């Protein structure tokens, strides 16, 4: 059977076919759809964990208990789970464990573009790097077998382009039946990593990598495609596609396993081609290893230092590759002739940018509007609300990683910074890594004011359930975490939960708290405007002839409020109009309008009724 699948769907498919029956992870672009797809298969357990570290520990426990298990996360998620990665690399497992790291070259939706193949080498586990959806499915199955054969977790390293590209996949209709393993292991020498045991395990995992390197020589997904012998390209992952596209005649050593590498295979490839280059995205991961093996890699005379890292010889170290970049780099390196392209036409019209913005009706908007008026330093976090940085709200001053907001604000406060520091964090991010930071604020008594923007869902990644929503990934009803109670239990005494659309209460509360010492937490609660239940309540608002173009409503940065072509007769300023397709009726604009020129929902309803009469 052949079907069009995205790389993410193919990983889920492969896992299911391989008899994987447990999955735990945390949503993060570009990995999210793996779990969402896997959760719908029969005979599987799949869950969203509060963060990647918990997710990986869960997966490890399941693999200790003899079930084939997968744990998924985006690249920076593996930073959170790194502690667990390193101990499970030491202990090994009872049944196959696959750790999916979905990297994001070009940072389409991430704060960095770290190359997680390095984590595989760092922790001494094998790394498979698929180039399309078929390989995503095949490599996932291979990863489970490898994991059990070598008693090691296996990293399946995806990239955004592979995750989100769909291509045909040949598959089977059957889930492998994995024979039941014995009882939960009572093998302390292997599973209890106290120093005396860990010291004995370390040589074992170093030997394991040696064995895997041997195995790599005959691994089915490492292959040589001989074509012409003047140029040989060593490549892995999606870069293989660009190699085929740009160098159709070149010989290629395609590495399905990018760590550890097959030294003899590389030796024979290098012997049979005149010139060898490495084509890979991001770090010179393969290239550095091949150089260390002592093989000669072609290096152009002129390398522009600004574009390549000192050990990456031809292709850029930053950003996602594409055929254009690969071709241009190869031309500069003298590997391809510069083609005389018809004078490339380019447009000379400045185009209005279309940056991502907080949606119309977004419940985060009100807090950002108030914070922008208060002009306090705001330490932000990862989620939709990072968009509070965009003009005209321009409210976020720092944002680094999941859960960082509260700790950073606390650090600035204890450093004696003269301004009052605010942290803003969403519900899911608070559960992820915000809680320990808030405990720290309470415990060490800093003045930090934290705004928890509770929109009742994990928003940015596309509405995943979390411990606050009352449902699990597999749609089971469950307990709903009470954020206010949790905050109080952390030791914060000043806590208030408000309706996120209540601009005045938010402003009054924050202003009051600014005058008082001590930590405080404001929970602004309202469901994401894109949730189906919120959509049912949409009611577009109207601007009356009281508008005089004062511009206050423009300052909330709502895409539904437009400047009319009509000018105010007195001041000649454009009047406001509301796009009836976009407006949800959240009433933030109506609340901030100083002339009451925007009708509230009940006024709109009343006006409609009177028009009907």
């Amino acid at each position, binding site marked *: 059977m052949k079907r069009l699948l995205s790389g993410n769907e193919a990983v889920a498919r492969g896992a299911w076919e391989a008899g994987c029956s447990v999955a735990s992870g945390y949503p993060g672009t570009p990995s999210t759809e793996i779990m969402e797809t896997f959760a719908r298969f029969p005979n599987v357990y799949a869950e969203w964990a509060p963060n990647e570290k918990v997710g990986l520990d869960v997966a490890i426990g399941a693999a200790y208990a003899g079930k084939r298990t997968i744990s998924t996360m985006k690249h920076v998620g593996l930073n959170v789970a790194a502690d667990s990665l390193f101990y499970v690399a030491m202990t090994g497992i009872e049944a196959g464990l696959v750790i999916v790291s979905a990297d994001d070259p070009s940072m389409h939706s991430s704060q960095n573009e770290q190359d997680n193949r390095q984590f595989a080498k760092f922790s001494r586990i094998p790394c498979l790097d698929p180039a399309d959806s078929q390989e995503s499915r095949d490599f996932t199955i291979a990863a489970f077998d490898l994991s059990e054969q070598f008693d090691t977790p296996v990293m399946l390293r995806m990239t955004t382009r592979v995750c989100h590209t769909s*291509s045909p996949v040949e598959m089977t209709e059957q889930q492998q039946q994995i024979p039941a393993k014995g009882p939960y292991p009572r093998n302390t020498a292997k599973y209890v990593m106290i120093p005396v045991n860990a010291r004995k395990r370390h040589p074992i995992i170093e030997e394991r990598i040696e064995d895997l390197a041997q195995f790599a020589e005959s691994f089915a997904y490492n292959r040589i495609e001989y074509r012409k012998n003047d140029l040989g390209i060593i490549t892995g992952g999606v870069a293989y*596609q660009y190699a*085929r596209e740009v160098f159709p005649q070149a010989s290629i050593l395609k590495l399905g396993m990018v760590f550890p590498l097959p030294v003899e295979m590389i030796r024979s490839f290098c012997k049979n081609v005149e010139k060898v280059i490495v084509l890979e995205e991001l770090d010179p991961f393969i290239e550095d290893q091949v150089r260390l093996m002592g093989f000669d890699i072609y290096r152009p005379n002129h390398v522009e230092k600004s574009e390549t890292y000192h050990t990456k010889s031809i292709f850029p170290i930053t950003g996602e590759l594409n055929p*254009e970049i690969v071709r241009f780099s190869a031309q500069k390196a003298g590997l391809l002739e510069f083609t005389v392209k018809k004078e490339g036409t380019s447009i000379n019209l400045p185009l209005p940018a279309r940056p991502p913005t*907080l949606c119309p009706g977004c419940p985060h908007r009100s807090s950002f509007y108030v914070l922008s008026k208060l002009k306090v330093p705001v330490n932000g976090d990862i989620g939709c609300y990072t968009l509070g940085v965009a003009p*005209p709200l321009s409210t976020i001053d720092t944002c680094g990683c999941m859960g960082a907001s509260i700790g950073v604000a606390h650090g600035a406060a204890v450093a004696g910074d003269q301004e009052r520091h605010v942290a803003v964090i969403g519900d899911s991010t608070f559960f992820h890594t915000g809680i320990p930071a808030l405990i720290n604020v309470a415990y060490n008594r800093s003045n930090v004011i934290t705004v928890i923007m509770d929109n009742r869902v994990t928003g940015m990644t596309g509405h995943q359930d979390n411990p606050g929503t009352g449902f699990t990934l597999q749609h089971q009803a469950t307990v709903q975490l009470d954020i206010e109670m949790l905050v109080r239990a952390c030791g914060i005494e000043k806590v208030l939960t408000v309706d996120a659309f209540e601009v005045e209460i938010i402003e009054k509360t924050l202003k009051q708290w600014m005058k008082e010492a001590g930590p405080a937490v404001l929970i602004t609660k309202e469901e994401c405007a894109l949730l189906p239940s919120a959509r049912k309540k949409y009611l577009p608002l109207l601007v009356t002839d009281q508008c005089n173009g004062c511009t206050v409503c423009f300052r909330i940065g709502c895409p539904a*409020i437009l400047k009319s072509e009509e000018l105010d007769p007195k001041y000649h300023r454009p009047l406001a109009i509301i796009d009836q397709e976009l407006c949800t009726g959240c009433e933030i604009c109506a609340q901030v309008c100083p002339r009451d020129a925007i009708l509230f929902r009940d006024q709109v309803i009343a006006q409609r009724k009177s028009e009907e009469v």
Partner: protein
Amino acid sequence: MDQKKLKKDYPDGVNFLLTGVGGQGTILASNVLADLGLALGYDVKKAEIHGMSQRGGTVISYIRWGEQVFSPIISKGDADIIIAFEKLEALRSIEQIKPGGLLLINDYAIVPVTVSSGIFEYPEDEKIHKTIIPFTSNEFWVKGLDIAEEIGYPKASNVVLLGALSTLLGIDEQVFLKVIAARIPQKYYSLNELAFQRGANSIIG
């Protein structure tokens, strides 16, 4: 099914670039085009980026049909066909088009906040057209939303555009509709069929 015109016009396969704004139905349209490529016997790759770009930003997908497709990304100047679900986005992607390539534009504007906040001006139709001329004369404007609204189903403006495309490529309507049927709930099929046909006829008329 003999797709003579298609094979004659595009002997090496077809590179599509779809562009629009989050929420406009570009994802469904690109899924349909990927399925259609498979139904016509091509190897297919379809690439799109999810994530932050969906929050009111530009959404681009690539669909490539060919005997064997490698790169999921289409290089600058290699898009045979661009379908722009929003006028401004047609301009943003125009440098990607092959000289003389087919450009299908939905005559519909979604004003970005950078315009409503007064930083930029939204280009007028005449200006859009003039900017396109150096790239291609193969330019078609379709009133996708108007047509979809006429039949009482404004959501189907994407399918109106697919209908227009079927006429321009000479692809058998039944093959196309079968692929669409497989991608949408059955109760909406007849409306989508109507939208498709109105789109197809909009090119002839």
